[in-house]
């Protein structure tokens, strides 16, 4: 699959890391931080503790200068780590964008006066091309802008966009007429009508998407932000009111001193969900980045997120569920003809036939009847290629004349040879056609040997993919123009949940609307102009890059590999994005329990020495306890950066099973890990004696 062809960027690319380090300092600007309420609170805390430290230098501090200094430093580091995570995620996108931009040098375009190769050519820079201009692109030229082929056929290298080195064919009319700026024509020539104004081209859109310049928060991200802001305010209340509480308690107990502002700030930063707050935007950007790694360009972050919510998947039969070309699936001999003889003749007739259908006949004969492939040259056979006149192909071999072709063409040939077309073969042919398959008839001389059934072949492994989708709770529907009988047979073989037979653009649109009215989210793929209305209606619409401009504009995701099964991967990436957010939120909140056990006894020990019993981790001193919790809180962000960038591993299981697994790892794990981590840090800082 496409995953193999993709270039993998190392998670910590040194260049990206270096730039991210610089960026994380630049992002300390409070005007930037205020967009993220959680980290903004941490920054305010850092400033406050720094001021408290400066105050100690004048000799009137609330605690030991060394202690306040270290707390302040680690709070600044917490902010820097969060900034670093975000910069890393952005950096990966920017690297991608830089690679894309390099393919867009300003080139000289051959502007045509009209949509005709022979009209007058003038040379203009590609940046000046406007929608509706016609340009000529010849072998070796780079396509100057997005457009549609109006004349000509050419092979085009689109590796700059897709990463796929094999050239593709672009021709006028039909669904392969779209070309993208920055790709290179390898052979022949094309006349292209430009469809995008400068700055609005597909490449421009891609660059701005991957750079994150136009990144808007997605709905789920905003909801999560609200929850995190709510928690932050609650913890702010908790810590702020702790000051009067402790002053009262000092009076009530008649001993000790109220909790210091430094400790309160430390407690606040430890309690507010900094782990998820610091990684949230990195997770979002990384999700988009993973889409790009999968060679899919999301036209909005919302589309990526919606992909995870898909309930219904509409898939085209041809090319997605079945192989694009029909293949031989059975030899059906005429009465009195040995099936082996039919297979042998069919194979001979197809040896030199390089069409996919021809190859499949050779393969079928080999697999079913153990007939080895023979070399047509050594047999001394003469290949008779397919021609529009005869509509047959075949082979002449030592006086044998073997032909295969459509039934009526073969019937005409037989009649000319003085033979008759047998009725049993006629009914075989009719049966095959009724099933939705294509019949080919094989004849040798005047005698009809039988028929070959060319049918749809379901792609290998697709059945398992659909079973996965079912486990994920996604319903798959196959769309086909076939009659219901054929559709049902293929649907059963492929294991899809439902099918739409004899589909037209209208029935597709109706199907999508019906599902949406039932509250379901529908995803579909499409490439043709006639898919555009359905694509526009679908919630997640993946347009093939090879598709028409109309289809690409209607879709909210564009698959550069033009691989229809990519939809499944897209759904997984969408789910992974949400899961990463959910699990890190859970982890972040569960962490707080241990931090309480570290900081509370330390804060109130002087008032109620009995509270020392809560120091279950047996942390060395109150100062080391507070500092360890703060250090743990900062370090956990950096430890989780790889997880945020890569995403939580996704397995297609039911929701219940996924929740059980993640709740165990990130919920229960989140309770336990900080107890161990804080204890370890406490042991280290006590050993090296910095507190």
């Amino acid at each position, binding site marked *: 699959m496409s995953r193999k062809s993709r270039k993998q960027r190392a998670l910590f690319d040194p260049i990206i890391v270096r730039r991210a380090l610089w960026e994380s300092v630049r992002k300390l600007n409070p005007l930037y931080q205020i967009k993220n309420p959680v980290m903004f609170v941490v920054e305010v805390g850092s400033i406050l503790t720094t001021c408290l430290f400066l105050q100690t230098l004048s000799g009137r501090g609330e605690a030991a200068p060394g202690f306040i200094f270290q707390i302040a430093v680690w709070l600044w580091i917490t902010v820097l780590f969060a900034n670093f995570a975000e910069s890393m995620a952005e950096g990966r996108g920017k690297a991608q964008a830089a690679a894309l931009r390099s393919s867009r040098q300003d080139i000289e375009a051959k502007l045509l006066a009209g949509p005709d190769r022979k009209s007058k050519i003038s040379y203009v820079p590609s940046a000046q091309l406007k929608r509706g201009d016609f340009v000529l692109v010849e072998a070796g030229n780079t396509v100057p802008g997005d457009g549609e082929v109006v004349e000509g056929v050419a092979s085009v290298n689109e590796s700059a966009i897709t990463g796929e080195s094999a050239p593709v064919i672009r021709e006028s009319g039909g669904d392969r007429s779209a070309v993208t700026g920055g790709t290179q024509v390898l052979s022949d020539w094309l006349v292209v009508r430009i469809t995008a104004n400068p700055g609005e081209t597909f490449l421009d859109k891609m660059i701005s998407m991957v750079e994150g310049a136009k990144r808007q928060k997605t*709905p*789920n991200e905003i*909801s*999560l932000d609200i*929850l995190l802001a*709510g928690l932050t*305010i*609650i*913890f702010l*209340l*908790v810590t702020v*009111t*702790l000051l*009067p*509480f402790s*002053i*009262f*308690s000092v009076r*009530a*107990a008649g001993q000790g001193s109220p909790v210091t502002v430094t400790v309160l700030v430390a*407690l606040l930063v430890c309690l507010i969900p900094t782990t998820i707050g610091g990684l949230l935007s990195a997770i979002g950007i990384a999700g988009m980045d993973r889409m790009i790694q999968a060679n899919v360009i999301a036209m909005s972050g919302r589309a990526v997120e919606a992909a*995870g*919510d898909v*309930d219904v998947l509409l898939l085209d039969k041809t090319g997605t569920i079945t192989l694009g070309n029909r293949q031989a699936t059975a030899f059906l001999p005429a009465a009195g003809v040995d099936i082996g003889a039919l297979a042998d003749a069919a194979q001979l007739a197809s040896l030199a036939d390089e069409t996919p259908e021809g190859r499949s006949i050779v393969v079928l004969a080999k697999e079913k009847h153990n007939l080895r492939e023979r070399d047509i040259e050594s047999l001394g056979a003469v290949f008779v290629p397919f021609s529009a006149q005869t509509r047959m192909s075949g082979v002449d071999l030592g006086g044998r004349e073997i032909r295969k072709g459509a039934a009526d063409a073969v019937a005409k040939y037989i009649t000319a040879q003085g033979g008759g077309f047998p009725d049993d073969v006629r009914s075989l042919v009719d049966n095959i056609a009724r099933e939705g398959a294509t019949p080919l008839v094989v004849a040798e001389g005047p005698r009809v040997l039988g028929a070959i059934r060319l049918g749809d072949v379901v792609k290998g492994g697709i059945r398992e993919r659909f079973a996965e989708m*079912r486990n*994920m*709770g996604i*319903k798959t529907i196959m769309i086909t123009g076939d009659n219901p009988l054929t559709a049902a047979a293929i649907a059963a073989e492929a294991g899809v949940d439902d099918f739409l037979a004899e589909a037209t653009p209208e029935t597709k649109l109706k199907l999508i609307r019906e599902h949406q009215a039932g*509250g*379901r989210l529908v995803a579909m793929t499409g490439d043709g102009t006639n898919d555009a209305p359905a694509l526009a209606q679908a919630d997640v619409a993946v347009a093939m890059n090879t598709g028409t401009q109309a289809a690409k504009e209607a879709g909210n995701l564009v698959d550069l590999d033009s691989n229809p099964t990519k939809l499944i991967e897209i759904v997984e990436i*969408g*789910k992974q994005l*949400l*899961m990463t*957010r*959910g*699990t890190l*939120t*859970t982890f972040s*909140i*569960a962490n*707080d*329990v241990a931090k*309480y056990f570290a900081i*509370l006894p330390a804060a*109130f020990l002087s*008032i*109620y020495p*009995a*509270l020392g*019993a*809560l120091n279950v981790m047996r942390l060395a001193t109150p100062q080391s306890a507070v500092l360890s919790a703060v250090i743990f809180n900062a370090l956990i962000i950096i430890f989780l950066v790889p997880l945020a960038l890569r995403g939580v591993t996704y397995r297609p299981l*039911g*929701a*219940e099973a*996924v*929740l059980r697994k*993640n*709740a165990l790892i990130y*919920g229960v794990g989140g309770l336990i890990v900080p107890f161990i981590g804080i204890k370890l840090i406490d042991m280290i800082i006590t050993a090296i004696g910095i507190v």
Partner: protein
Amino acid sequence: MTANDIFQMVIYFGALLLLAKPLGIYMARIYEGEQVPPARILGPLERAFYRICGIHPDEEMDWRQYAAAVIIFSAAGMIVLYLLQRLQGGLPLNPQRFPGVPPDLAFNTAVSFVTNTDWQDYGGETTMSYLTQMAGLAVQNFVSAAAGMAVLVALIRGFKRNSAGTIGNFWADLTRGVLYILIPLSVVYSLLLVSQGVVQSYSGYKRVELSQPVIYDAVKLDGKGGPVSSPDGSPLREKTGVKEQIIPLGPAASQIAIKQLGTNGGGFFNVNSAHPFENPTPLSNFFEVLAVLLIPAALCATFGKMVGDMRQGRALLAAMLLVLVTMTALCTWSEQRGNPRLAALGVNQTAGSLQAGGNMEGKEARFGIVNSTIWAAATTAASNGSVNSMHDSYTPLGGLFPLLLIQLGEIIFGGVGSGLYGMLLFAVITVFVAGLMVGRTPEYLGKKIEMFEMKMAALVILIVNALVKVGTAIGVSTAAGVAGISNPGPHGFSEILYAFSSAANNNGSAFAGLNGNTVFYNTALGIAMFFGRFWVIIPVLAIAGSLAKKKQVPPSLGTLPTHTPLFVAFLVGVILIVGALSFMPSLALGPIAEQLMTGR
């Protein structure tokens, strides 16, 4: 814990579960507007009432209209109740000739009863006339409970309806709740209580001669009320005798029934259900404590029935039970262990056939430990606030669980209606986090949980939290606040924390030690109760309105099921962690410090 403790708990929770489902389904039918058997008698009454008040029960309201109706109705109730208290001196049914209630206390009491809190800064038998008790307090006991239930039903409709603009008619929901649920149940309950000896009378208080006059040593007072000193400086003591006693009476049984059923908790007498005329026998105690959780538990079944999936209601009930049973058991265990200070005085605290054992300070001998702790847990879980023992006298750990049950936000059963809508908000937040964890935009009961719902749910948790924390902070920092404390050390802190927790969460139970009848506490707690009720109801109704507008998403394998043990465990985890995280520091300075200082 003794075998008896466990046995009593099993009986209590068993009886509760047995009754919850039939009552819940009955209530669902009422709110769905179905014909129920009592309608044959009460139906004409209902229709006549609608005609008189000009209510069109079939006219649906959107959430704004519904919220406006709740608030207008409550504001009117508050004004009437305030005036009734102020003017009671000149009104009939006042055999004891009580004067008008002072303004700050009247304000506090009016807010308290309209918000279904029933915090009482007064002693009923020494402050309120029979008219105020019956026409004021008892009426609010009914309608504030019915209003809470109406808001819950509106929220349930939000989940249930598909692309709808309205969530029901408040006036109809209110009327049906009172007429078909609260009044019939109260009539049955009043008769049960009267059968056990709870008083129901209009006559004045009786003076009776004691059959055993009591003689005791008391400090001799001078004319000004100060102690008279003996020549060596110590206060002079003298023998005092008491020969007669005043027996307070009144229409108590009818009011106690609704006070328990409607999670109101405002006692007719000052010591509430510890009073022998309010709760005379172990059987009356069982009925009363059963009534505390009866409707809140049954509403879970109502919810399941109305959303068309009983399992959803069962899951919420299971989550509530899990928390409550655990806390009840821990509280009972802590109290049954006894009080080390009493042990030091040589008091025998072992359980036997003649005594319940354990820490009996502040508990009634006729109820013992377990029936006091079950009550304490139930009354704090359910935002009822009535007491049959004094929580202030519990061991620090034993007192922590009732306090924690309040601070969890009155969602473990909680007030009638208000408890379940609070719980549903927590379910919404749980679904949001858990839903993200399975990789889908979270859905609850087929409704997508989005920005607006999160905003409102976060707002609710925030408001109640802020009221408790800021209130307590003001309480401990001002002279007026500290003046109310009657115990030194961390216990005094617990008293103030308990008062604000109780008021903001509309529970109404008191830690007893705090003297609340001062201008400061009457005002501050009144404000906390007001915002704790209405600043929750408005966001809840806003969520109801927003949910009703959404399309129902049919469940698939990818949808997070919300009726499984796993979800229940996750929900309980979220409730405990959010509750514990936001109150752990203050609890550490109160009951936890106190418990650790006792050295066990």
